[in-house]
């Protein structure tokens, strides 16, 4: 007996050759998201990403809290990159409230956010390694990350959720002898990073699995609005730290890493090469930083933003990260919109996976430098 379907609902017509796979939404292999993949044999016919499993309403929550109370919850979407996600928020609120930031604080913010970018990238690299079944590449970055976590812990007092950057500067000054300790650990990490080359990036097994898979052309990368390492892997020289320098990035010496191939190998190589640039920025910032001075401009209690709106963005570990804040003369923002790189890079997933082998799905997917929690906010 045929079941009577409610009006307006149709059953999907299924081809016998096509099988639908649900990857996720439980953790292993996908993060907190689901990929609905249709396969014909071993080849992917279509891929439909289904994000939203970890939506927490950060934007709505921000409307009920004042500008300072917003700090701890706004860093929750990417706890591994918490300085970078707070950075545009601080820049935006500073413009809204008209606060000047002391020079030393600007340098400290740059150091903190570059350290945090490395911590994030190493974590991402660890997961990328284990996705491809390379368990050594999981353990090395996960251990070396500790060096920078230790530095940020000395700076901010917390290991992961730092709540260190605030509108007006940073919460506290650097501890004594920090510069020396920081340089020592940065040097050591750089030495360690070079060892990743032979075991991972120059490993023929990795190369054969990632080279030439999931190719995103330069025009497609621009047309789809991708950002961050995905955009730079397709040959577009675009880094917000260079193009729209914020705080003191224009004084610092570093280069944008660009590759032309646009395949999954290039996308995984760029964040790694950028860690060397981050180390360079940290060294340069320590050299150029004023040796003493104030680090925080005190705000009035419960500061009110005028009738105004601002948009500020920075380059985070996953690409452009922006905050659009509207205020209407109240201590709480009227509307906060967070524009995140992860969500913008998600759009190219169906294009990249079409026609790929199912076995290449993890490398293409995680090579997008995608962070589900950030995309869902």
């Amino acid at each position, binding site marked *: 007996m045929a079941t009577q379907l409610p009006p307006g609902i149709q059953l999907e017509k299924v081809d016998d050759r096509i099988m639908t796979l649900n990857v996720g939404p439980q953790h292993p292999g996908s993060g907190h998201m689901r990929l609905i993949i249709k396969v014909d044999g071993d080849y992917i016919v279509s891929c439909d990403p289904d994000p939203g499993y970890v939506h927490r309403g950060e934007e709505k929550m921000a409307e*009920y*809290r*004042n500008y*300072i*109370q*917003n*700090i*701890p*919850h706004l860093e929750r979407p990417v706890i591994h990159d918490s300085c970078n996600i707070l950075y545009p928020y601080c820049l935006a609120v500073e413009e809204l409230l008209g606060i000047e930031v002391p020079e030393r604080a600007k340098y400290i913010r740059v150091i903190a956010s570059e350290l945090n970018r490395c911590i994030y990238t190493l974590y991402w690299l660890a997961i990328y390694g284990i996705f491809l079944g390379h368990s*050594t590449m999981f353990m090395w970055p996960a*251990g070396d990350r*500790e*060096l920078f976590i*230790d530095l940020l*812990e*000395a*700076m*901010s*007092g*917390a290991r992961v*959720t730092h*709540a260190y950057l605030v509108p007006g500067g940073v*919460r*506290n*000054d*650097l*501890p*004594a002898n*920090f510069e020396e300790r920081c340089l*020592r*650990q940065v040097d*050591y990490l750089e030495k360690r990073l070079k*060892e990743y080359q*032979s*075991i*991972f990036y*120059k*490993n*023929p*097994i990795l*190369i054969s699995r990632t080279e030439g898979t999931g190719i995103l052309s330069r025009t497609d990368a621009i047309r789809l609005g991708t950002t961050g390492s995905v955009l730079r892997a397709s040959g577009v020289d675009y880094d917000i730290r260079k193009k729209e320098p914020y705080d003191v990035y224009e004084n610092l010496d570093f280069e944008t890493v660009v590759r032309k191939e646009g395949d999954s190998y290039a996308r995984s190589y760029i964040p790694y090469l950028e860690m060397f640039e981050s180390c360079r920025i940290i060294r340069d910032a320590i050299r150029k930083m004023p040796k003493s001075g*104030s*680090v*925080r401009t*005190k705000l009035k209690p419960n500061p009110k933003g005028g009738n105004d709106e601002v948009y500020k963005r920075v380059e985070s570990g996953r690409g452009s990260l922006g905050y659009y804040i509207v205020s209407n003369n109240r201590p709480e923002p009227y509307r906060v919109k967070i524009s995140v790189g992860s969500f913008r890079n998600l759009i190219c997933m169906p294009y990249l996976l079409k026609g790929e082998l199912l076995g290449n799905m993890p490398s293409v997917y995680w090579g997008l430098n995608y962070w589900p929690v950030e995309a869902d906010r």
Partner: protein
Amino acid sequence: MSTAGGIIRALNSGIKHLAIRRFTLRYPEQKLKFVGDGFQFNPETGVGIAGLRGRHILYHEHCTGCQLCSVACEGIAEAIGMVKIDETWKQNKKAIMPQIDYGKCVFCGLCVDACPFYALYMTNDYELSSFTKSALIYTPAQLAVKPKISQDVEIKIDDRGATHG
């Protein structure tokens, strides 16, 4: 580069690690050393002093019961409640002091920023686990106790790699 050569090189760089020191911290036996005595505030400059943001410490002789810490925490974790105390302090007419629920606290330290009388600081104590939920609620008397801690292991770096102590 030939495939076999690449694989041998990759294996070789793994094998070299047999000579490198163990990096792992053996936690309950070894405890990591932190800078300073916890997150505090410098009354002169009004800027924080770097330190670990662990359990709070409340200086009863400074606290005036102004409730600003609990107001600050309201939008964050609602971990602070003001409770009556038995002691009498002349600066604290209402005889109320903060009580912190560590089941809720996220250790952001913004209550320390908010306290205008420098009565609330944070300490290096992070081992707060307990078997009951009610034991996570620290009364003003418990918060006044300075924690006893022995944390002495640091990251050491030499040519055989980085290690913990």
